[in-house]
């Protein structure tokens, strides 16, 4: 059956925990100290960002960074969400659209391609796979102008499409989908589906997709984060700030702080607000994506 169940079978957590009782208390202490120290390392900057979001502009620099001064969060949020006609909310919406829909479709495309690479032998298969993987080697800075010219040829620069369409392509997603499809979709099952008279494409959507579900969630989340964080492509493509995703919007605000210093607070608060949905998404979906990660690691 699927990797997910197999993983569960392989992880005799309870047995390991039971054995744990016998571990030396000193080892436990060392482990605890290490993990505790690094928890601080990973969380303190985020905590700082949260605390800074609650302060007025002057207090960010003048009061202790890790604890609250006057509670100014609501005023700051009000400022962020109303500045320039509430454009920040629009940026958030755009980012959700680019990243959400883009990651959804991108996952579908990548998984179909990766699935075909894993399950069918055809001429040029390996070459194709290598070319796709080679795509991650090229610096984004080099692709900006050519991409712009392509979209301008189609009269699509400065549109949702110009950011949305390139975001659909995820070479890493293809890689993951291929590995995972090879591991989790047994050839016998496909053979059986064929005997039942099911078409290949139908089999993919009815049987294989279900078996690959954890990988699909993983690809989706990675793709989502990649699109959400990407500001270089929209920076090149978009001149209408109503179409910006939130990172580019924050970048633009950050570049204007010389002229409009009030925006400094907006950048801090806006940054905090922008990472909250991502953290929530990961929390909510975590039991799905862990299984998918295993595929990328083990089967590599």
């Amino acid at each position, binding site marked *: 059956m699927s990797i997910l169940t197999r*993983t569960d079978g392989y*992880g*005799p957590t309870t*047995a390991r*925990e039971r054995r*744990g009782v016998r571990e030396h208390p000193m080892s*436990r202490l060392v*482990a605890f100290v290490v*993990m505790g120290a*690094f*928890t601080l*390392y*990973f*969380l303190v900057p*985020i905590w*700082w960002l949260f605390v800074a979001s609650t302060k007025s502009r002057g207090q960010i*620099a003048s009061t202790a*960074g890790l604890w609250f001064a006057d509670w100014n969060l609501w005023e700051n949020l009000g400022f962020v969400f109303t500045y320039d006609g509430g454009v920040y909310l629009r940026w958030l919406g755009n980012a959700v659209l680019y990243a959400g829909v883009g990651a959804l479709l991108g996952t579908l*495309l990548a998984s*179909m*391609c990766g699935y*075909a690479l894993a399950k069918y032998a*055809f001429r040029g298969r390996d070459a*194709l796979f*290598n070319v796709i993987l*080679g*795509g991650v*080697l*090229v*610096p*984004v*800075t*080099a*692709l*900006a*102008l*050519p991409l712009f010219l392509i979209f301008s040829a189609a009269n699509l620069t400065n549109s949702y499409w110009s950011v949305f*369409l390139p975001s659909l*392509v995820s070479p890493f997603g293809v890689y993951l989908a291929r590995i995972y499809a*090879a*591991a989790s979709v047994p*050839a016998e099952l496909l*053979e059986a589906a064929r005997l039942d008279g099911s078409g*290949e*494409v139908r089999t*993919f959507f009815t049987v294989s997709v279900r078996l690959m579900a954890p990988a699909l969630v993983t690809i989706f989340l990675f793709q989502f984060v990649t699109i*959400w964080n990407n500001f*270089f492509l929209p920076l090149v493509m978009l001149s209408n700030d109503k179409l910006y995703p939130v*990172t580019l919007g924050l970048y633009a605000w*950050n570049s204007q702080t010389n002229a409009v210093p009030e925006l400094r607070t907006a950048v801090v608060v806006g940054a905090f607000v922008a990472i909250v949905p*991502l*953290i929530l*998404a990961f929390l909510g979906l975590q039991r799905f994506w*862990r299984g998918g*990660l*295993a595929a*990328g*690691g*083990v089967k*590599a």
Partner: protein
Amino acid sequence: MSTTTGSGRAAPTTREAASSGRRRSRHGGAITVFVVPFFLLFALFYLLPIGYAVFRSFRTVEREGTFGPATEVFGGLTQYEQVFASEAFWSSLGRVLAFGAVQVPVMLGLALLFALLIDSPLVKGKRFYRLAFFAPYAVPGVIAAIMWGFLYSPGLSPFTFVTGNVDLLGSGAVLWSIANVVTWVYAGYNMLIIYSALQAIPGEIYEAARIDGAGQLRIAWSVKIPLVVPALVLTGVFSIIGTLQLLTEPQVFRSFTTSISSTFTPNLVVYTTSTVPNFNLAAAFSVVLALLTFALSFVFLRLTNRRAFA
């Protein structure tokens, strides 16, 4: 150990290839449906731009007078001559190589340590640690860099006992300050990949080690680590690529410190050149950078003798 993993995977692949090979003609339509949508977009948004960049890297401009119009002509290797003569480019490359030589092993070492600890019975509250360590990955690079920029600045940082004594943004330390930001963002992500690999190790293997009387440290060293080597190789390759393409963090840091030049990393060189605007030269830089990235990833895979991408 690695051979086990290798052959375990190779067997079904061969079988599939053989079985589906016989039916090649029958599934042609399905393959087209699966591959073409992705490949079309890939060709349009990767291959075509790359091809165009390569094309432009062989072009050069000619003009007359101070404000004369420019004409694009074939320039042969003119741009590449400039790339190889560019001191800034090669020293930026040296800089990121030094960066990668230290940061990648440290980050992956930490990721491995965390993964092993969370996987071991020594630690309670695995769920919490997993999430806490992974959370920075959700912070966009621009925002992470701005955040750490604040934390490093002597006048703003809450950690005055550090920033008061060491100039984290000075020319000597700033490269490693950036390394810290990258580590902060990606260590948890790499930890999860390695941890997931550990989770998939069959329990019987531990039982065998147990019977031999091996302790946790021993099990980690001689059983677990060899089994997660493929995961380490994978994360290693992606880290190398990421290192060579370092851009966001140094660019953001330029507003916090005077020690980062406009040619600090190879990608900054490309960016700076394209703002001149001298796209032909920027394209040549990119081509060379991409080739070097490829070469380095390839050498790394050869050295580790693993085919992470096969």
